[in-house]
């Protein structure tokens, strides 16, 4: 009997977000109609958020293997080897829809969720980065509200839990007005042997839930919020947003890491979207076993919760682990030490079934495979758009303005001005590893060994990692394939400026509704571009996340793949800086730079829509330029290194002057567009002339003015003030 014969059942599954076809598959798989608990569980596990049903086939195009990969996609976070028996685990994840509904808690729990992913694999979180998108701050009180509260939420969580927020990026575009993007990335460190799998193992072992009480918060978040377009009636969805408690997570983190240090766990998994249902079924699926859970054993915040509510609650700050029976008392002892609530709620079985009991009585029984693996995967119908998807905005600077006026407008613009009003709300130094914090270099640099009085004694190197996060929706909108590739090059360029070589990538793909052919085309093209660029640079993708349906009645967001990248530096003492420092240093241009204006910030300030074409790039030239910069920084030949990114070459040079508090005299190469962009290809470096041999010299560091020969002179202090106050001026809250 199929769904079509069961008019009562039809309404139920549709309300939960399942299609009639999917419901028929469930009935076929089970051989019967699912019960209430079962349908609630299936509707979440078969949601876009959990099953990736519209993106999984495309994601198979990404390269996931490489010599440094320790854990690839599929676990809570991927991990790469950084030498000295150390692994770096990292992942980026979106919390867009919850943040659009309630930005403080949405952003806070986004950070909390990604941190749990990191310590679930056994790594101690050592850094957080975030990538944010909002509507235009000058025009939109809503965007200012979302920014203010999302930033406060990120700070509230990261600062309180003692993990430094070391980097990030923010862009403002009208298409994000209704759908802000909140992507959080976390990075953790572990000795190789402590990397932990979530695969449940050992029939007869016990399943133990520890952390916060289970309440009614977030029920249905994954299917209701994360897997459909937002509409005006979204205030009604506010109860589906979870509430974060960083203090509870701090205790949970220390407790989890101590349990792993003491070797007391067979496996560990965090509870995220779809709560117990998703965590437990994924553990069972990976381990090829069954599980039995009794909901009456789950510690509840509200006594009268129904079994289905307990199974799908998205209450935060909870972990699930599998423990051998003889170790349970010791596990409970560690939990007691950290004042973390813990309860044995079930056991591992050999049935391959996920059985849910209430006080011993069966209330749901599903094959693990049906829950985790049998959700249908859809092919998309990609079609390039026939009409422009995005329009231009207000004109902020005249197309015939003189270069100095244009430079000033760019430096003060929402997308290029200093992020200081934001990053001053985050602690970047806790844990005592931060060698480069925001505005000191193009990527954050974190020392790997604990720094002490003996560090670097006898000239021993201090190994370090560099981390960066990047995205550029405007340029991906111009050309999804080339734009997505450019994001990868740009992120790698950031690492090169600190002297780091990329080891791995995590990505978060933020797109509109994939059931619409033009969004499907953007997604498919962007994934091809990412895959190509990762292959070009030899960097594997070790994990990530997809956020679809970022669409409002006004249309889809700009296609926004966000890339997080981790690289390694042999010696933190040689980590690069972005600011000019030494008067008399020469300034050189590294790389093949072919700037153009389509999709650029200057085009935006001119009121143009993101359209046209991006510059064609030579992969060999990109690799050579990155290599040259990396080596120059590592050998301490360069005093500074900065990649030429949004705004073009003059903005990049001005940023080097502002960061160093020193001027420069520049002779721009003939015919070079001072405001065109070609991201990820070229760099501005400074150093003594003998260190820059073979590079085209375009200027010299010195004085308190930026002088562009034949064009203008301007005091660096004036540029610094414009750049420093640009964002504050656009945000009513800033001081």
């Amino acid at each position, binding site marked *: 009997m199929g769904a079509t014969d069961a008019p009562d059942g039809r309404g139920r599954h549709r309300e939960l977000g399942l299609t009639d076809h999917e419901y028929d598959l469930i009935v076929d798989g089970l051989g019967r109609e699912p019960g209430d608990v079962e349908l609630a569980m299936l509707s979440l596990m078969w949601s876009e958020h959990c099953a990736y049903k519209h993106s999984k086939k495309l994601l198979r195009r990404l390269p996931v293997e490489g010599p440094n990969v320790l854990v690839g996609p599929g676990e809570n976070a991927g991990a790469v080897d950084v030498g000295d028996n150390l692994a770096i685990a990292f992942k980026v994840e979106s919390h867009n829809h919850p943040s659009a509904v309630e930005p403080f808690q949405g952003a806070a729990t986004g950070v909390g969720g990604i941190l749990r992913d990191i310590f679930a694999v056994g790594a101690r979180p050592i850094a957080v980065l975030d990538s944010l998108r909002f509507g235009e701050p000058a025009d939109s009180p809503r965007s200012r509200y979302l920014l203010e509260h999302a930033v*406060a939420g990120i700070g509230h969580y990261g600062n309180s839990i003692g993990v430094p927020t070391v980097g990030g990026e923010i862009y403002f575009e009208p298409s994000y007005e209704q759908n802000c993007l909140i992507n959080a990335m976390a990075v953790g460190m572990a000795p190789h042997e402590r990397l932990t799998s979530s695969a449940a193992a050992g029939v007869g072992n016990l399943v133990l839930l520890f952390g916060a009480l289970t309440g009614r918060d977030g029920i249905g978040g994954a299917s209701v919020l994360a897997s459909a377009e937002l509409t005006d009636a979204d205030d009604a969805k506010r109860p589906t947003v979870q509430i974060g408690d960083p203090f509870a997570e701090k205790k949970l983190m220390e407790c989890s890491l101590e349990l792993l240090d003491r070797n007391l766990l067979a496996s560990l998994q965090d509870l995220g979207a779809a709560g117990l249902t998703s965590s437990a079924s994924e553990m069972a699926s990976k381990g090829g076993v069954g599980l039995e859970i009794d909901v009456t054993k789950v510690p509840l915040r509200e006594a009268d919760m129904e079994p289905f509510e307990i199974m799908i609650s998205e209450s935060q700050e909870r972990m699930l682990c599998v423990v051998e029976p003889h170790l349970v008392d010791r596990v409970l002892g560690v939990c007691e030490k950290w004042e973390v609530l813990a309860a044995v709620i079930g056991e591992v079985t050999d049935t391959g079934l996920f059985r849910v009991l209430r006080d011993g009585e069966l209330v749901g029984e599903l094959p693990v495979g049906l829950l985790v693996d049998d959700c249908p995967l859809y092919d998309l119908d990609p079609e390039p758009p026939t009409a422009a998807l995005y329009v231009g905005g207000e004109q902020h600077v005249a197309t015939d303005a003189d270069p100095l006026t244009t430079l000033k407008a760019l430096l003060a613009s929402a997308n290029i001005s200093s992020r200081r009003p934001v990053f001053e709300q985050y602690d970047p130094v806790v844990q005592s590893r931060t060698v480069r914090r925001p505005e000191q270099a193009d990527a954050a640099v974190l020392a790997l060994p*604990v720094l002490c*009085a003996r560090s670097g004694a006898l000239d021993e190197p201090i190994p370090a990692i560099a981390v960066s996060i990047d995205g550029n929706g405007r340029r991906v909108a111009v050309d999804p394939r080339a734009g997505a590739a450019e994001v990868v090059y740009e992120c790698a360029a950031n690492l090169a400026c600190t002297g780091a070589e990329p080891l791995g990538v995590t990505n978060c793909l933020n797109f509109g509704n994939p059931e619409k052919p033009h969004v499907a085309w953007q997604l498919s093209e962007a994934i091809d571009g990412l895959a190509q660029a990762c292959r070009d640079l030899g960097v594997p993708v070790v994990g990530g996340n997809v956020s679809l349906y970022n669409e409002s009645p006004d249309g889809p967001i700009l296609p926004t793949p966000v890339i997080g990248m981790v690289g390694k530096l042999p010696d933190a003492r040689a980590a690069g800086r972005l600011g000019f420092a030494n008067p008399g240093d020469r300034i050189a241009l590294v790389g093949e730079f072919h700037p153009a204006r389509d999709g650029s910030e200057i085009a935006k300030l001119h009121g143009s829509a993101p359209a046209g074409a991006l510059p064609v790039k030579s992969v060999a030239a990109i690799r050579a330029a990155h290599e040259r910069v990396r080596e120059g920084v590592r050998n301490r030949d360069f005093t500074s290194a900065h990649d030429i990114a949004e705004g073009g070459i003059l903005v990049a040079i001005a940023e080097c002057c502002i960061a160093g508090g020193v001027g420069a005299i520049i002779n721009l190469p003939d015919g070079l567009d001072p405001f065109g962009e070609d991201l990820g290809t070229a760099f501005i470096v400074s150093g003594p002339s003998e260190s820059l041999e073979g590079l085209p010299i375009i200027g010299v560091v010195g004085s308190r003015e930026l002088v562009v020969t034949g064009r203008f002179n301007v005091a660096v202090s004036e540029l610094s003030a414009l750049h420093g106050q640009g964002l504050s001026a656009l945000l009513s809250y800033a001081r």
Partner: protein
Amino acid sequence: MKFGVIRFPGTCDDVDAQLAAARVGEAALLWHRDRDLQGVDVVIVPGGFSYGDYLRAGAIARFAPVMESVIEFAHEGGLVLGICNGFQILCECGLLPGALLVNDHLKFVFRQVRLDVVDHNTPFTRNCPPSLSIPVKHTTGRYYSPEPVQVVLRYAPGENPNGSQDDIAGVVNNAGNVFGLMPHPEHAVDALTGSTDGLTIFESLRTAVGERVPVA
């Protein structure tokens, strides 16, 4: 000499303080439920968010068993250093005068600030240069005291990050053995991470302990 760094649930800068102290002496972590201070010469109440800073920053930590011993230790003349959340806790339990209020701009602030050392005649600042570059990071750092207090550190003119009364960044008690400050000296002990100025506070303590006549 030996430092003891207290760890409450929610403390974040405990390991940082331990690493900084270990540059000048021995340093151990002290658990909040233990009353035994393990014979340390200096107690550090570190930064972070003890008990989540719920209710009010430092308000719950003051009731921890270990704090009974710390109060006793301080009353006997033992050296106590409270950093950020530790400063808040020392004010809450009455070892230091005044209180820390929410920043005048109502937001968390991280900033590398310049401090003027206005009293070098303390066990905490005797080796310090006249001016220090040390980061602050807090939401509740605006010092207020209705009565006159012994000021040790002030934010340099124009650098006050939170609206503190008279630019006060750190104070000692009347006996001079309990010191609280909002800036984080433990995050300024290595040139690689930004500054070494904070180390002079730990070095001052080493000197002070070295010169002390042991209590018979």
